[in-house]
Structures are given as structure tokens and as C-alpha cells.
């Protein structure tokens, strides 16, 4: 539908940018450029001459973009941040999600609104993904620690693997701790006694 619309994504996170780009493609926006590098940002944007610029809020280059409001003589078309005085809910949602949108030229508000909504949902999806990934990573770390502690106990107390694990679990329950925490204490103690 809006294949003609030129969209720039400014994001130092390539995975999030890819997720957003996919979402935009699915919605029919095929003319999407991702800028990852901070250097020469304005020059690249001028060269691309986009209709919409999307930027993540952790990106320090946001202040650089704001300069474009001021440089109307250098830019062919005026740039404004997407702010709708009457629609604070969407500003809230975009700040919550961590994304901001800038409009170049006289793009109609409802056209940018759908893009911004898409950004918000994709950014939120990315945050959930990141969260799951972090949890998976920490689960993996936990398992490594538990395996090491089991090995130490098996050797020191001549236990089977099941017995070692049962001992860790029982201790954790008694002390109201996580198994991984008890396992870490076992490793630390073993290192001290070494």
C-alpha cells in the first residue's frame, strides 16, 4: 500500500531493527533503510531523504535528529517530531516502548499513526523476546553451575549424580534458597579448600 514511503530506522541494535523492518515489510512498506552507525548520521539521512525517521530512545543520536527542526535551510523539507497534542496516550505508549518517530514533509498524521503503532508493538515484542532470552541464558548458566556442584559433591562425598542433586535440592529447600545459589556456594567453598 505505502511502498512509496521512504522510512529510515536509526537503531544501534541490529536485531530489533530487523524485527521492525520485517513488520514494516509485512505492512507493505518496502522502502526501509536501517542506519546503525552514529557517524555521519545527518549526511546519510539527507542523502536518503526519507518521509519518516524512526529512532530508539536509548540512542544518543536523538538530540542530533532534533537539530533537523532547526536546519530548514539545509534540508529540503521540514521535519517535525510526531507529536499530537491531543493524543498523549500514543506518546506515552511510544516512550514506554522506547521508540520515537519523526515526520519529514507534510505527511498526513493518520499515515504515520499506523506506522508508529506498528513500531510500538514490534518494540514491545522485541523487549519480550529479550526478556525471554535473558531468562533462558540465566537458566543455562544455572544448569552449568549445578552440574559443576554435583560433580564436586559426587567426588567429595562419593555420591551418585541423583544423590548429589537430591542433596543440593534438600539444602536449598531447608535454607529457602535457589538450587543454583546453593550450587554456587558449593563451588566457592570447593575453591577455598583447594
Amino acid at each position, binding site marked *: 500500500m505505502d511502498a512509496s514511503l521512504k522510512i529510515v530506522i536509526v537503531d544501534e541494535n541490529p536485531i530489533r531493527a530487523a524485527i521492525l523492518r520485517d513488520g514494516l515489510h509485512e505492512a507493505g512498506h518496502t522502502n526501509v533503510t536501517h542506519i546503525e552507525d*552514529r*557517524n*555521519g548520521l*545527518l549526511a546519510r539521512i539527507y542523502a536518503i531523504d526519507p518521509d519518516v525517521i524512526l529512532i530508539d*530512545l*536509548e*540512542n*544518543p*543520536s*536523538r*538530540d*542530533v*535528529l*532534533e*537539530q533537523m*527542526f*532547526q536546519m530548514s*535551510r539545509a534540508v529540503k523539507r521540514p521535519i517535525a*517530531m510526531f*507529536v499530537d*497534542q491531543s493524543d*498523549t496516550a500514543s*506518546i*506515552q505508549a511510544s*516512550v514506554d516502548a522506547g521508540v*520515537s518517530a519523526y515526520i519529514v514533509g507534510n505527511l498526513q498524521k493518520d499515515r504515520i499513526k499506523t506506522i508508529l503503532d506498528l513500531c510500538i508493538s514490534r518494540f514491545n515484542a522485541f523487549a519480550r523476546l529479550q526478556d525471554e532470552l535473558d531468562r533462558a541464558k540465566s537458566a543455562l548458566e544455572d544448569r552449568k553451575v549445578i552440574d559443576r556442584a554435583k560433580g564436586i559433591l559426587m567426588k567429595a562425598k562419593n555420591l551418585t549424580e541423583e544423590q548429589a542433586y537430591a542433596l543440593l535440592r534438600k539444602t536449598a529447600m531447608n535454607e529457602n534458597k535457589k538450587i543454583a545459589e546453593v550450587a554456587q556456594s558449593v563451588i566457592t567453598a570447593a575453591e577455598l579448600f583447594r
Partner: protein
Amino acid sequence: MTDRLRIGFIPLCDATALLVAVDKGFAAAEGLDIELVREVSWSNVRDKLNIGHFDAAHLIAPVAIASSLGLGHIKVPIIAPFALGVNGNAITVSPALYGAMAEAAQGDILDPMTSAQALARVVAARKVKGDDPLTFGMTFPFSTHNYHLRFWMAAGGVDPDEDVRLVVLPPPYMVESLQNRQVDGFCVGAPWNSVAVDLGIGHILHFDSEIFARATEKYLGLRQRWAEENPDIVRRLVRAHQRAADFAESEINRDEVAALLAAPHRIGVEAEVIRRTLDGRLKVSPEGAYRSDPRYLLVGRDGAARPDPAQAAWLYAQMVRWGQAPLSGEMLAAAKAVCRPDLYDAALSGSLSAGETPHASIGAFAGPQFDPDNIETHLAAWNIKRLM
């Protein structure tokens, strides 16, 4: 009763009163449990304050004024019951540009008029040779750094829009950009000028305090509506900040304050560099020359923490001079109304001196004395300007 607040800040030495208020317990003593949020851009600080994610913010003064006037963004009235820092910026240039300016200078380059005229000669010579215009970094379109650079160079005959390029750079990236030669100089707050000098890639040309006797830098910014709804919290905030500022200004506490500010989650540079800023004794050249000015950064001394409407008027006048705002009496009044010395005085029960008389408070090196009630005269004094 304890009230929980979220306050945003940018890692800069002029956040001292705020950071000390929290980390030394002055805020807790007022029953304020403050969560500090370190931010990466002024746009973020402004937006999060505007929509209520932050209750208060370490805010660059012109951003508070622009937000209250609805310039460049949605209009959200912001007020400042406490000023975080007077002065504190510096103009740093590359050793190459410093060398060229020193050669072109007719007189003492420490004199801002001499240095500005030297810059004009360097700019003219580059034009003749067909070189690219010089590029200077500043922190935000609505920033003291933008206005200070412009004021200084324009006084020497350099048109900041025609003769050089001014680009926005986040403060932590100023140094890198000077190193990569993306900029030839910049105006930024502490500690970034010192960081550039220590790396041997920058020469501090001027302290802000050499260009203006007194220039408001940052505010503790609050949404006006929130401040009206929470007058008691505002009073306690001001008191906590004033105690923190007094603590930081006392020389015996400087090492402790510098160490506290140096923490990675606060400013995150070496304590010694921060100490230099607080002392106003800065290494200015890669060769190791030092220059001192006790007025380099005023955290709370000398009435610095009391918001001064004349300073807000001056900042608005710069917005008008450089085409960011129309000239209007209404806007001038709204800009002045950002500063709330009444709230400051009420919180401290008038126990502090009112500071210097507002009319003499800018003390610029060039032009007529600034009259906050007559900015037309200020604007008429300049040939280089870009009125709307």
C-alpha cells in the same frame, strides 16, 4: 512520610547538587526517596519529564524555556524552583585550530573579542583557499552551548549559520568527534573539555565564565502542574538541593564529592578530572598549562542556586536572535515565569541572600548591558542575527 520520586539526569558536573542530594542522604533527610535515572539525550529527558515518567529533571535551561513556550515540541509548562549550576561550560578547539587562531590573533587570545576576531580571520582565510567550513559541536538546538558559541563568534564577525557549521553532538561523544576530526571545536559542560585536553586532542580556548560573568546553565525542572499539586514536595526538594549544593561547595568535602560523582552510574569519569572542575582549576592545553577561575562552575555559591528570571529572558532573547522564536512580550513573560525564585525563597524561608541584581547578571564580554525588560535593545545591538 516518604515520597518516591523519579528524576532524570545527564552525566555532567552541573548535576552535582542533585547527585549529592541523593547519594549523601540530603533528600532522604527530607523524606524523599529518589530514584535517579541516567539518560542519554536531552530529548529523552524532556519527553519523560513532559509525559510524567519523571517527576523532576536535571534540565538544560533553554529546554525548559522551549518546552514552556511550545518551541520545537509539545507545549508543557515547566518551572524551575532551583538552578543547578551557573557557568561551567568551556569552548575547546583542536590543536590545529588553536594554532591557526593563535597565529591570526592580534593581541591576547585569552581575550574573547581577540579570539573571536582571530576565528573570523581563520574562517576568511579558509574561504579564500576553498577549504571546508569549520565545524563546531554543541549539545542541543535549545542549549546554552549553542547560544554561547554563537554569541562569542558573532561578536568577532563570524556568522554561525553562514561561515561555520554548528552540529549537535551528545556530550559523551564530543571528545570522540574531535579526535575523528568530525568537528574542529565544541562547547560543552564539564568534564568533557578536560577529557579532550587529557587525551591531547583539545585545547580549552575559553571558560564560559570568561565570556559571561554569570550564565545560568541547568535547572531542576518540574512540570508546573505537578509542582502546583505537590507544594510540600517542592519545598523539600529545594531544601535537599540547597544543602547538597552547600556541601559540595565546601572545600573540605570536595574529594568526597568528586569520588561520589565519579561513580560509573553517575558521571563515570575519573574523580581527579571532576575535582578540577569543582576547583575551577583546569588543564587547558595538552602541554599541561593550567588556568584557574573560581567562577568556572558555581553549584550553589554566590546565589547561584536561586533561579534568575533575567537569565531566562537572556536565553529567550537568544532564541529570538537566532530565529528559533518570534519576538513577543507574551513569550518573554512566559520565559521569565519558568524561573521561580519565590518558590526557592519560600522553601528556604528567605534565609539566603538574593544574589546579584538581575540586571547586571549576564555580564557578557561584548554588547550593551542586558536589560531583561527590553530585549529589543539587545537584539538591535547586533548585525549578525536571524530574526523570524
